[in-house]
């Protein structure tokens, strides 16, 4: 209780003399930047039985946190895409053996710019069709940016 009183008293003083010493806070979201080497892009086509190289540039004003990649089917067109231009979609269909890929990745500490890469195997036996490719990136303060791409697997 003693501590409470002290803080209350301090607070009174602070509120009377203005903001006092306030830590600088970060209010900016990290960015996912499309570069010439970024892959996949909106409407990219991936091939079954191949290994694709994921590549995206992440940037933050202070320090990046981590990123994750998620590939799931969009046969029902539920739309996670955050890109404005829609790709040509196949008719709605029921999934049989759709591809599912979820992976999280560390970003070395202290960086405010990082090129995220990952090798992703696209199995031979999965359903072809419309998929979502979700990229999530966080910064150290907990701001998260999501990019949802519509892709096709053939």
């Amino acid at each position, binding site marked *: 209780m003693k501590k*409470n009183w002290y803080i209350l008293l301090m607070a009174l003083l602070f509120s009377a003399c203005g903001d006092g010493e306030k830590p600088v*806070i970060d209010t900016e979201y990290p960015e996912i930047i499309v570069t010439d080497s970024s892959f996949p892009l909106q409407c990219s086509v991936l091939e079954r039985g191949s290994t694709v190289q994921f590549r995206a540039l992440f940037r933050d004003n202070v320090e990046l946190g981590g990123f994750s990649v*998620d590939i799931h089917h969009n046969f029902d067109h539920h739309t996670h895409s955050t890109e*404005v231009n829609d790709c040509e979609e196949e008719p709605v269909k*029921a999934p049989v053996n759709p591809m599912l890929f979820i992976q999280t990745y560390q970003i070395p500490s202290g960086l405010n710019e990082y090129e995220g890469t990952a090798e992703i195997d696209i199995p031979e036996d999965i359903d072809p069709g419309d998929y979502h490719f979700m990229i999530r990136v966080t*910064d150290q303060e907990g701001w998260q940016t999501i990019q949802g791409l519509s892709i096709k697997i053939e």
Partner: protein
Amino acid sequence: MTFPIRLIFFLCIAGGLFYGTSPALAHNGFPMMGQDTTKLSKQDTASEYQDLDEVVVVDQAAMVKREISNSVALVRQDFIRENRGGSLMKSLERVPGISTIGIGSGASKPLIRGLGFNQVMVVENGVKHEGQQWGADHGLEVDQYAAEQVMIIKGPASFKYGSDAIAGVIDIRDKLPPAEEGVGGSVELGGRSNNGWIGGSANVTARKDNWFVEGRFTLADYGDFNVPVDSVFVYDFGVALHQGDVRNTAGRELDFSGRIGYLGKHFRNALTVSRVRTRSGFFANAHGLEPRQVDAAVHDRSSRDILLPYQEVTHTKVINRASYAAGKQFIQLDLAYQRNDRKEWSQYVNHGYMPPLYPAEMPYPSSQERAFDKHVFSLNLKDEWFLDKHQIMLGASGEYQDNTIGGWGFLIPAFQQYSYGVFAIEKFSVSPLWKLTAALRYDHSRIHVEAYQDWFPSVEHADQAAPSDYLYRSSDFRRDFDSFVWSVGVNFLPGDLSLKGNLGTSFRMPIAKELAANGVNYHYFRYEKGNPDLDPERSLQLDVEAELKKENWQVAFSPFLNYFSNYIYLNPTAELDILYGAGNQVFNYTQAEVLRYGAEFNAVYRFTPQWSAELIGEYVYSEQQSGAKRGYTLPFSPPPSGIVNITYQPLGTESFFSPYFAVDLRATARQANIVPPEKVTEGYQLVHLRAGAKVKVFQQPIQADLQVQNLLNTRYLNHTSFYRLISLPEAGRNISLSLKYEF
């Protein structure tokens, strides 16, 4: 209503002051309820008050405020009627210090000085309303037509109300029992242009000797609400809106209540049964923050249909209040049962590791995403003594609740919880000018959280799943919490001035979600992780209120200073979790020290008997003092805002009386004080108009009230709106009309 009856009615509102012959004697309980007082319970006809001037009566109501050491706002039915919004909380938004977290047009949650959810307690007819713990996306299951008076305590009130009253209390009261023999009632009808809302409420009351009965029926049906834009961007995903309609935000509400009571000389009893039932759609293009492709042709066929996703809530209450008044003692017992039955319907989407096709053997339909069923039994007992200079209240309360869950989506496990508390409040009238209040309370509660296992394995290839791949989202555990709070207050009442101060602690037991959540909230792309080690949230607050009333003007200023030693909140981290979180960002329930301060200001000046002006302002500042978000504010921090009002009340005529015309200019500042995942919200200005009068039609008086909200059809974002994160603007221009006939 004839004049004397209305007078008695006002007296009852102002009641609680009357005990014996000392009108200044404060009643620490619910000062608005005449029912609570020994005087009125002994003297049902109250004929001796008939000669009182109405002006005196109004002053009595104001005096209630002067008698309580907490910062309070009293709102009566006429205020709610003149400011009626789509839900009770929207109707109260004009009160300084009150804002709302809105979702759609028919539901909203209260924010008192920037705090809401479980930090604000809602009490209806003396019993704590249970049902809002589940999330941000649903409102308060209360029939706004049944609310006759609302007392808002803008500060900690745990000492009287128990856990959850840490930031304040919204105490809603139904109409008082009829004072006179015979049959009476009212019919209200209304319409709102923005969302095609039509609805109304009818009630009938009857009294014979010591018995009375009352019934109410409320109905509302509304369409999609309309915004002054033709497209919105859910993230960057562009959504075209059909004629500005926010797809699938239509809803329906059907409420009824019934009451039967006995009003004896010493003994009184009232049994109330009520049910509020709502069905309302969620914006179809974004379930939470998740963009959804929709069949626009199906949705846009009608703006009034409710398609997936939508929610259904049925809230049932049975409350029995018994009281006994003898000599200087007043005893009251409340027994209550309530059930909150809530279902969320949405298409099955295989998020994360869920199977691509919904298994046929599941016990729920594929469209039942979540179901929560809450049963609560509660008891409140109080015993008051009215002595010469002392007023002592001893009280006890107990509650048991059982919560079960259903549906294919998991967020919080099932749990049971019981709690009890005892308290004592002493009011001491030192002199006619000085009053002191002191209170102590002890509470104990225990929560039992049930285990929950996923119905699907968290692996990429389900056919290779081992039993351990079916994750336990929650383990079976129990926790006990104890809490001890105190409060001291002072009132100083020299003439026109009223000064009050209150210093007190308050507490809140952590809820199941905070202790045990362990699932992905896919609508927000976040993995919410509870913390079973959380302590009861504690707060220390200093409230000061000064009010000066003169013949033509009055000013009020109410600053506060608040410190939380452990504010519980959902902290977004840099982590992304693969196993439990399916690649989503981890949000941890955590506790941090928080400092908050702010104030409300209110001034009224009457230029002439016809013209008056009012100025209202509110400001809140919050800052986390420790933990991962040190230096950040709290989520849903309302920006500073103010209202400038001009009211014109000309003299009426024989068939058109008590007319009023009012214009509100509302200005809200930019909110740049944000915490992840919020966005900076720009300021805005709005113009609202209100007008009304009692009109005689076929010799019958009908109260008509007209409102034009957002007159200029301004496009703006509300920082505390549920849909702020997807940048969905607030409703455009709305014209609403309501008619009320009393018989």
